[in-house]
């Protein structure tokens, strides 16, 4: 499920090299015959409009952002609207949605409010999704940057390690890690971060290998800048577009992983989570199917919003890819 999410959206091999460079309106030399001159000219026109403007005009990005903001709002206002513990009994069990207006989405087999569960679940899913991705992106960027910038033996070694982690089926490794460490929010988050970093490491390494050969890096080196400064101030900003695009998809993957884990009963038992709601609702699928359908729908919407944002960012940050669409 997971390796694939990330590997499939690989906008990376293009970005660094193909980023259009602004060219003067009138070429200084009239005899430019470079085969891609016209391509650069078209892209340069696009490049001129401001980034937020281009994002605002991208339907995928706008739709995804609106959807995600709604879900974030639900997570933020959960303690205000439903101050009690979402795991406590509040009403008659198995009320259907709409049956009692005090519980608009019904109650589960233990009389817990489904709406409260969904809103509090949003907090857990988003928290784990974003923190796990931060861990994965940080580890991956450091490893990838060292491998790509240093090259040589260190690179060979790190590539082996990345390959190793990409060979082990990541979801099975995740299950093993969480089962060994005992499920809690912290262990689930760390485990998801630990199985997702290779994706970003491979990407950052590829970007750094291309970028370190560029003239501006050579210029920085000849000015006597330290390696740290070159990596952080010169190369990393140029690798950022690719990292950002992948990050949005990684958050989606992390949320899907957390949902699957807690569906299997490997989530934190003390908090309500969308996956665990589906897990406990599945026993009643013949009689009260809304208990399974509603949390799943919310997961789909959340993941969809992040994927739409990822698509939009790919369009805007990778003009060459988007023209092929």
């Amino acid at each position, binding site marked *: 499920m997971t390796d694939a999410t990330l590997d*499939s959206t690989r906008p990376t091999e293009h970005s660094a090299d193909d980023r259009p460079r602004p060219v003067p309106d009138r070429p200084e030399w009239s005899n430019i015959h470079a085969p891609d001159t016209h391509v650069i000219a078209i892209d340069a026109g696009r490049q001129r409009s401001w980034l937020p403007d281009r994002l605002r005009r991208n339907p995928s990005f706008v739709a995804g952002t609106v959807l995600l903001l709604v879900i974030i709002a639900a997570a933020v206002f959960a303690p205000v609207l439903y101050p009690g513990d979402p795991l406590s009994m509040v009403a008659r069990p198995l009320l259907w949605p709409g049956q009692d207006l005090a519980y608009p989405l019904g109650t589960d087999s233990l009389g817990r409010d489904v709406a409260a569960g969904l809103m509090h679940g949003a907090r857990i899913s988003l928290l784990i999704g974003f923190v796990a991705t931060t861990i994965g992106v940080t580890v991956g960027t450091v490893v990838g940057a060292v491998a790509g910038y240093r090259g040589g033996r260190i690179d060979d070694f790190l590539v082996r390690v990345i390959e190793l982690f990409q060979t082990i089926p990541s979801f099975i490794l995740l299950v093993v890690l969480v*089962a060994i460490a005992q499920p809690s929010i912290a262990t689930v988050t760390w485990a998801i971060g630990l199985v997702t970093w290779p994706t970003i490491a491979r990407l950052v390494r590829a970007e750094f290998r291309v970028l370190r050969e560029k003239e501006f890096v050579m210029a920085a080196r000849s000015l006597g800048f330290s390696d740290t400064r070159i990596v952080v101030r010169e190369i990393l900003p140029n690798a950022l577009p690719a990292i950002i695009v992948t990050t949005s998809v990684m958050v989606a993957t992390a949320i899907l992983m957390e949902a699957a884990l807690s569906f*299997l009963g490997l989530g934190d038992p003390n908090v309500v989570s969308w996956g665990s709601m589906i897990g406990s609702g599945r026993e009643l699928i013949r009689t009260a199917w809304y208990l399974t359908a509603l949390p799943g729908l919310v997961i789909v919407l959340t993941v969809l919003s992040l994927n739409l944002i990822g698509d939009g960012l790919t369009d805007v940050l990778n003009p060459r890819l988007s023209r092929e669409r």
Partner: protein
Amino acid sequence: MSGIQRIGKTFRRTIWQAVPTVIGIIVINFFLLQLAPGDAADVLAGESGSATMETVAALRSRFGLDQPVLLQLVAYLDNLAHLSLGYSPRYNLPVADIIGQRLPGTVALMTTALVIALAGGIALGIVMATFAGRWPDRVISIVVTLFYSIPGFWIGLMLILLFSVKLGWLPSGGAATIGADISGFDLLIDRARYMVLPAVSLSLFYIAIYSRLARAAMLEAQAQDYVRTAAAKGLSPLTITVRHVLRNALLPVTTVAGMHFGGLLGGAVVVETVYSWPGLGRLAFEAVMSRDFSVLLGILLLSSLLVIIANVTVDLVQAWLDPRIETR
């Protein structure tokens, strides 16, 4: 260089590259096993219910669990060399035997899902590329993005709800009708009826990936000179699409199909749990529930090795498909 030679050389190179990965996986497995709370002696003692400290110590020394870690690693490697993955007190069977029983179910499910995903994905990709930018492309894009966002276990439950509970067309779980005395064509139909829902749930996500990939690859192949040549010599659009564009667009799709083997295995864990499918995934779930770590890590080791085998196979297929892929 002849085809056979090329494939032979690719085979030697990929096997050689796989060796350090295999060693790394084994070492990681061993240390995870060390980290797992409670060893085999604890489990056995717990099962018996009346073990004294002395019995546990005796069990430990019998299994070599009181040895230093490095010696245990050597013993573990020795066991692996004899194809032994340890012993599961829970099932009272060697781990390798338990996994061996469940492996065919998972392989059958994964293969079916992969075939559905490739066929469906490529078909959708062709439609999208043919109508690029027009409404069929847009509509399918939206549907595909949706497929991409649906958790496999949830769509599995929803398919059960629709096709088993509401419509009653298909069974909701298991792999075959129990006690049915059928053979030949009827047996095949029976198996297929149990296979279709889990395989579809597992494949939706990959249909999304392959359709996007096939679309991009088709569009790229369409822009090539040989396609213009084919059009110029008067071939029909259908012939051009099938013989010239599609054939060249398939290569990138087969590359990632190999990479997704591990992901499919992970997805199978959840989908098999939903459908009570007798495979490795459900075994992993049962192992987690009973904290049977020797079985769990046996599955992790075996599935990693399966991924390596899949990667080698993809490399070989590619060397066979594309003469330009030389030994690096």
